[in-house]
């Protein structure tokens, strides 16, 4: 039974059945569609380090609060705001593998929008349409990360506020457990506080502008809301990080490097079609605000302005904006469409007159038949959802997709040859490297709040091969570099005699510092490397190989007649013994 129909009757008890459609059909249909939309290959550059941290948490039985995954921040306090979500992700991965992770993402996306649906007004078909629009806006942020938990909790807080304001049901006490849970799942709890604050500010605005009506909260109820907001802000301290949790939003915001270089922190790029739904939703709100006879509520106004501003600053805020804006749009659009649709229907009737067989068009489908049809449609969609999930998230598909995103070959080479670290790695690959190889603490990964602006700037300068890159590598005694083949640093290192290109493919390149090649393993690894590039570069006919004999390195340098020993040493970077072990010797060919 539709709420609008009830309101039109002017009575809560007198209900006019508008449709033979069961009330649950449209919401289920649209949420299944959202599930299908969100069922994707579970890959994200941050997912891997979350999984790794989750595994560590599960193994230790307590949250990881000190960095043990990087060389640059090793031993530093890590405000691990997502420890609970990480443990959940790891557990899901253990139990359900990649399909389990994909199912988790799709379920949470559907759940978050389900909570939004509950806050919307108007006919189900309108709500469904707006929800799909909101889904298109939020879709870019649906990925296997704790951020998704923030979206669900954002929806939950929004729903509690909706009940409080529009249904006059005070369930604000639930904010307390929600914020405690939130601060253990993700640092995005601040979004919930902003939502509460926006409503308090909006209601104050309503009073200041002299707007009345049942939906406007009284001062007493505003104070109550503020009190629960303050309680929420205090309760987020109930987490293993303690007071550090309050610092998280500021730490993240202060990392200026984020906005310039990390896409999700950048302002929207409306050249990309995937980012345009945000604009459509915003413009739809503006258009309906201008056209609708229903005055926009102060809470809606402040909320939309606040979250639209946040979205203009960083596109990662698209999700919260969509979830807030969808109910606002529904509230504005429902009365407008009702009025306009009525006019439209009248004009159609005027044009076609008796040409329409109204008796056929308006004849209701028997309830039983409708139910069978509905269940069939939902069942087919459910099958499609499961089918898509099993298709896009099966391990071999994930592995294949990983090859397009991550340096699978290079990391395989590292795993086989174990050259000495520390490693300087690409930011986007830090998480994957952590997940795949325990032995290499990363230089940097997606934990931007841990690394801070200064280190990230150093990383970016070095990664781009800008002035001072050598100093960055020296400062952290980097012996190994894993970077994108197209990066500026790779181009610089190719020209550096101190560095040897030990592995390369179309995606990634591994460089090894010559001085670090004292271990037999590294040298052995290098021996398998085609030195034709070196030959071409140096103009010398040099090749080398190794025959490790029970700890004794035997190295041949062909063409020794034409090249001095000094040059050979320069080339492979040693003084007396290429492997630093007794027994190593030079042999002329």
């Amino acid at each position, binding site marked *: 039974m539709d709420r609008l129909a009830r309101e039109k009757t002017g009575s809560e008890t007198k209900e006019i059945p508008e449709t033979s459609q069961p009330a649950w059909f449209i919401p289920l249909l649209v949420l299944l569609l959202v599930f299908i939309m969100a069922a994707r290959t579970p890959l994200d550059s941050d997912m891997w380090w979350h999984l790794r941290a989750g595994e560590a948490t599960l193994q230790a039985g307590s949250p990881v609060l000190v960095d043990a995954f990087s060389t640059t921040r090793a031993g530093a306090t890590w405000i691990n705001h997502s420890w609970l979500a990480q443990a959940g992700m790891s557990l899901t991965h253990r139990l359900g593998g990649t399909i389990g992770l994909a199912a988790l993402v799709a379920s949470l996306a559907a759940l978050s929008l389900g909570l939004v649906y509950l806050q919307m007004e108007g006919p189900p078909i309108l709500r469904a349409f707006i929800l799909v629009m909101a889904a298109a806006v939020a879709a870019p942020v649906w990925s296997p990360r704790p951020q998704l938990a923030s979206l669900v909790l954002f929806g939950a807080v929004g729903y509690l506020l909706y009940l409080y304001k529009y249904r006059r049901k005070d369930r604000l006490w639930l904010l307390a457990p929600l914020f405690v849970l939130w601060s253990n799942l993700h640092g995005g709890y601040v979004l919930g506080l902003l939502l509460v604050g926006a409503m308090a500010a909006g209601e104050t605005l309503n009073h200041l*502008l002299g707007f009345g009506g049942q939906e406007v909260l009284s001062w007493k109820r505003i104070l109550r809301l503020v009190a629960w907001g303050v309680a929420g802000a205090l309760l987020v301290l109930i987490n293993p990080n303690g007071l550090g949790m309050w610092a998280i939003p500021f730490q993240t915001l202060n990392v200026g490097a984020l906005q310039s270089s990390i896409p999700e922190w*950048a*302002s*929207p*790029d*409306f*050249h990309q079609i995937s980012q345009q739904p945000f*604009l459509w939703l915003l*413009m739809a*709100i*503006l*258009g309906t*605000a*201008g*056209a609708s*006879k229903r*005055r*926009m509520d102060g809470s809606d*106004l402040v909320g*939309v*302005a606040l979250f*639209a*501003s946040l979205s*203009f*600053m960083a596109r990662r805020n698209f999700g919260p904006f969509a979830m807030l804006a969808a109910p606002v749009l529904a509230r504005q659009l429902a009365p407008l469409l009702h009025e306009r649709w009525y006019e439209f229907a009248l004009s159609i009737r005027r044009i076609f007159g008796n040409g329409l067989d109204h008796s056929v068009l308006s004849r209701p489908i028997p309830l039983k038949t409708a139910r069978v049809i509905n269940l069939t449609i939902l069942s087919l969609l459910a099958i499609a959802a499961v089918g898509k999930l099993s298709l896009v998230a099966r391990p071999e598909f994930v592995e294949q997709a990983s090859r397009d995103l991550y340096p699978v070959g290079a990391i395989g080479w590292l795993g086989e040859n174990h050259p000495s670290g520390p490693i300087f790695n690409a930011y986007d690959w830090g998480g994957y490297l952590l997940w795949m190889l325990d032995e290499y603490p990363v230089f940097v990964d997606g934990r931007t709040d841990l690394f801070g602006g200064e280190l990230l700037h150093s990383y970016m300068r070095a990664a781009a*091969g*800008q*002035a001072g890159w050598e100093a960055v590598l020296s400062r952290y005694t980097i012996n190994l570099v894993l970077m994108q083949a197209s990066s*500026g640093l*790779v*181009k*610089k290192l*190719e*020209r550096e005699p101190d560095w040897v290109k030990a592995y390369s493919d179309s995606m990634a390149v591994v460089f090894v510092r010559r001085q670090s090649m004292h271990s037999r393993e590294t040298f052995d690894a290098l021996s398998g490397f085609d030195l034709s590039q070196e030959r071409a570069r140096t103009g010398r006919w040099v090749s080398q190989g190794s025959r490790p004999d029970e700890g004794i390195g035997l190295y041949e340098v062909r063409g020794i007649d034409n090249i001095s020993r000094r040059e050979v040493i320069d080339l492979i970077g040693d003084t007396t013994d290429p492997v630093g072990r007794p027994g190593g010797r030079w042999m002329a060919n």
Partner: protein
Amino acid sequence: MKTEPDLKSRDFLWFSLAAAPILAIACLLPVYPNDYWWYLRLGGEILSGGSIPQVETWSATQAGEPVVYQAWLAALVFLGLDWAGGVPAVVLARGLSLGVFYASIFLASRRVGAGARLAAGLVVLAALVGSSNWGVRPQVFTYPLFGLALLILVSWHMGRYRWLWLLPFITLLWVNLHGSFPLVFLLASAALVSGTGDRRRLSAVLAVMVLAALLNPRGWGAWGYFWQMLSDPSVRRFSSEWKPAALVGWQSALFFAWLLAGIPLAAYSIRRLPPSYWLWWLGFGWLALSGVRNVIWFSALLAVLSAALLVPLLSGKPALNAHPTRARINYWIGSILLFLTFLFLPGVRERWWAQAPPPLSPDTPVQAVGWLETHPELKGRMWNDLTFSSYLIYALPEQPVWIDTRFEVYPPERWERYQEIAGAGQGWQERLVEEEIDLVVANREAQSALIGALQHAPGWCLRYEDSTTAIFSRSGPGSGCPEIVVGRQDSRLNP
């Protein structure tokens, strides 16, 4: 003596108060080298050849390829202004264009009911938001056309059709001045679809506008040019002015704040605007968010729409002020204010201002190009900085450029290669060899890495340098480098 209320003189005074700082800034802003200079050369070639060039001849890299100059008339206007008075005349023309543009916005705001003070305030706001688009380029001539079209269509909504016949003439001028002429159709067709004026009249005018838009050297091809520019990969990827507006700096913050302010204005104003106004808002808002070069159009619309929505919120008293004003004094004060702005014109300001800013932007390589002209022996193929390209095309016509600000002329691969060389990326030397480059005209600010690399690279000699430019040439085998000439970049010099 009792005087009658005189809104016209008060309007003039308020507009003058708003326009005076705008015009003063327009006079003070230097001429940036990005596009202006090559339009002068284009104008010269059109005049001398009697036709618009259709084949690329200015660059070494795209020579012989077809090229389209939709803004041919603007090129001739620039040339005429240059002949008439050089850079000061061009700056004056920009000031006048902007003056007409903002006067149209003021009048349109007044037309929708705003008081003179509100209209003046909104004009200032629009100027602050749109001032990054005030460069001396063909677009600047289209701003008054847009403003007038907006004013005419706002008037049409209110049943005033007196100036409707001007729209085809505006279209005719616009299509020959700049490729952005479809914007006038966007304005008019939105009005036709959902405006409140006489649609029959507007339909007829729109039909004539379509015909007027055909009166250009390329006929229907002008429409194709518009779409080509919107979708051209080089333009979209490499031209900063075509990039989406990002929330960086005070100007964009002001823009976004005004954009979002549209929601409360729409929500709380008791006035309901015609849907056509919202279509304008949505269409031009989308354009502005898609490319910063479109912000200026949207700022005009924002001013007029804000005026319309704010009127009922702000009007505590009737629009007509009951207090009489002295019309003559108002006109005098306003005129003096506007006249004073001309004192900031280049060529005038130097007479009373010892530290007057130069008319040309410091990154116009006047001295360096002058030095190159005196060294005809440096004739090899040249690699040049993008910013310098326009001036090089103009001042050194015998030396083809490697790349220039006509983004659509060069394929994306060329731009990628440009970035590689400009940043001294991997293989820059090989790239210069492949391109057979013998001469590098680099920008000290934009290409510091390249300049540093060239200084240490064997086979290259630094021949000339000043505060903005460094010129390198290849040295012959075994020969040393001649002495470096240190120039004094002084853009006060009028080329």
